[in-house]
């Protein structure tokens, strides 16, 4: 999914962030604390914000991007309120984990690794979560859904306040 940063909706956050940048303006080596601030405020690093940092701290954008991609803490896509992790370990895979994943993708209209437009859900596929005897397993945030059937997917989405197809 192509994600669009909504400047209007983030107006307050942007103002807040600009203040953060100002406090670091005279700090040596300000880039990483400023990136951490952006990650905290926006939940990820929007392109527009990185450009703002580039101008304010007078650091080339390519360098900022290089730094941000070095550290695993920084993310370039926003994550949803609820993170659905579909286990694709061997046991789950054999028991239809892939089908379950596809059903989530269909119902929410996004692909694994993406986030819904309303920011309610992100889907990720994970390596074995060690619950092979309960395969296929899906985690929504910290809730475990064992032996999940395809037709239960819709129910789960509704439970977390989502809209399924």
């Amino acid at each position, binding site marked *: 999914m192509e994600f669009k940063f909504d400047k209007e909706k983030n107006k307050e956050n942007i103002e807040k962030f600009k203040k953060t940048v100002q406090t670091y303006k005279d700090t040596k080596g300000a880039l990483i604390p400023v990136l951490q601030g952006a990650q905290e405020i926006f939940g990820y690093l929007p*392109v527009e914000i*990185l450009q703002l940092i*580039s101008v304010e701290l007078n650091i*080339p*954008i*390519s*360098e*900022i*991007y*290089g730094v941000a*991609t*070095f550290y695993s803490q920084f993310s370039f896509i926003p994550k949803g309120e609820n993170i659905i992790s579909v286990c694709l370990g061997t046991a789950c895979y054999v028991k239809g984990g892939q089908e379950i994943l596809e059903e989530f993708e269909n119902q929410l209209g996004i692909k694994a690794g993406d986030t819904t437009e309303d920011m309610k859900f992100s889907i990720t596929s994970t390596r074995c979560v060690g619950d092979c005897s309960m395969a296929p397993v899906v985690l929504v945030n910290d809730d475990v859904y064992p032996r999940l059937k395809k037709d239960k997917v819709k129910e789960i989405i509704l439970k977390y306040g989502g809209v399924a197809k």
Partner: protein
Amino acid sequence: MVNLKINGREVEVPEGTTILEAAKKLNIKIPTLCHLDLHDIKFVNQSSSCRICVVEVEGKKNLQTACSTAVSEGMNIRTDSRRAVKARRTVLELLLSNHPKDCLVCAKNHDCELQKLSADLGIREVRYEGEMNDFPIDNSSLSIVRDPNKCILCKRCETMCNNVQTVHALSEIGRGFDTVIGTAFNLPMHESNCTFCGQCIAVCPTGALTEVNKISKVWKEINSDKVVVVQTAPAIRVALGEEFGMEPGTQVTGKMVSALKLLGFDKVYDTDFAADLTIMEEATELMHRLKHGGRLPILTSCCPGWVKFIEHNFQDMLDIPSTCKSPHEMFGTLAKTYLAEKMGHKPEDIIVVSVMPCVAKKYEAARPELGLGGTKAVDYVLTTRELAIMIKESGIDFANLQDEEFDNPLGESSGASVIFGATGGVIEAALRTAYEFMTGETLEDVEFHSLRGMDGIKEASVTINGEKINIAVCHGLGNARSILEKIQRGEANYHAIEIMACPGGCIGGGGQPYHHGDMSILKKRMQGIYNEDRGKAIRKSHENPMIKKIYEEYIGEPYGEKAHELLHTRYIPRKKM
């Protein structure tokens, strides 16, 4: 001084010398890969990351990199021990295990430092095979192809782009095995702030950065019904010979013309003619600004890398470069107007091919404001390297060719136009003309030596009509940036500045035969340029009879209305990244 022993032999070197340099003194060669020191242009890539140059130093637990370790008193070094050689070979094998093996069809075949190293070390198998990087190839731009899968992360391109050129288009992205050199947000090069100067190509040891190849397109045109005319830039004639085993700087103008004719070009012209034209326009423009209080300094505008650089980085200064099109674009315009009329062809039936030392010219040719109605002024740009391939491909025995002359009317040129190829040359050529225009006197000594040479920023003052004209010359975009910032701060008092993106000027262009780190090659080419100038009967642009003729017959007044329409352009502010 420090005394040490390398491979059992004693040597004395100054403090601070690296093991690599000390070994060189003993004629001991230690292979290197990432290391590159072009101190003439302040380029030092000493990341000691490839680990190819490891040597054994007595008393040290681990092997040490020769390129970055300074010698110390009493050091005892073995560069040839089993341990060092074995390590070196293994490190190379590791690099090869993540490198495509399609050398036969790689643009850098025979010019690849990794390939050469594998040959030199006699690598016959790669024991450690496994996953290889699989990054998309970026061929979005019109100038540069980036194949990150061939990258060995030596960072030379990054050092060049960021430290020397200060363009900041390239950066390391990600980490570990998946590290890649790329643009911000992995944007296609075409959408980035890259100036396409091509200096990254000039230092890349492998085929990770190469030019966009237009050879097959040009062959197709040659074999079509169209009239295909070719022009060659001043810097080609002192470098092309290198591709055929000749000494750098050898003047091969006549052989080049004859080869181009053999390749099947209908007419072979000289960009130098257009360079003379540029001088006419630029000198007149300078006088105009001086007389009418226009904004100073005037900046030269021949170099497309430099033009894109100022468009991205100094949007408030776009009124100071000369509005002159670059010479090959002037040529293209005249070929499709003046020449077309003269030859009795429609403009669209003429194909203009430029042979340039430059990859940015490829991008420049597609700038819409340089087009003529529906067609481009220059249809294709080939680099010196591409031309050499075409000559080799055609089986032409270049070294034994007879000299031939350029065709006319766009083939006659002065010595002033030849020196466009070296840093300082444009301004020197302009001075030869401006002086005579402004004073009405003959300039006896036409050579301005203070404007020549490899210094990054050169300055000179010339008194014309009792007025002191302050001149600066800079090459390399980092030097350009510092001089522009000086102007921005109001600290500079220049009347005219020549700027070239590539260190050394066009003779060091990104499309020239690879120098492989040998800066003496650039100096020899430079000498070749000045020799060519000295050999010319006419050494001032305004004395070129063909130039006089074209103004009389077609253009009218220099810097006049028609001249503006044909020979001048405008600049476009671009996103500062």
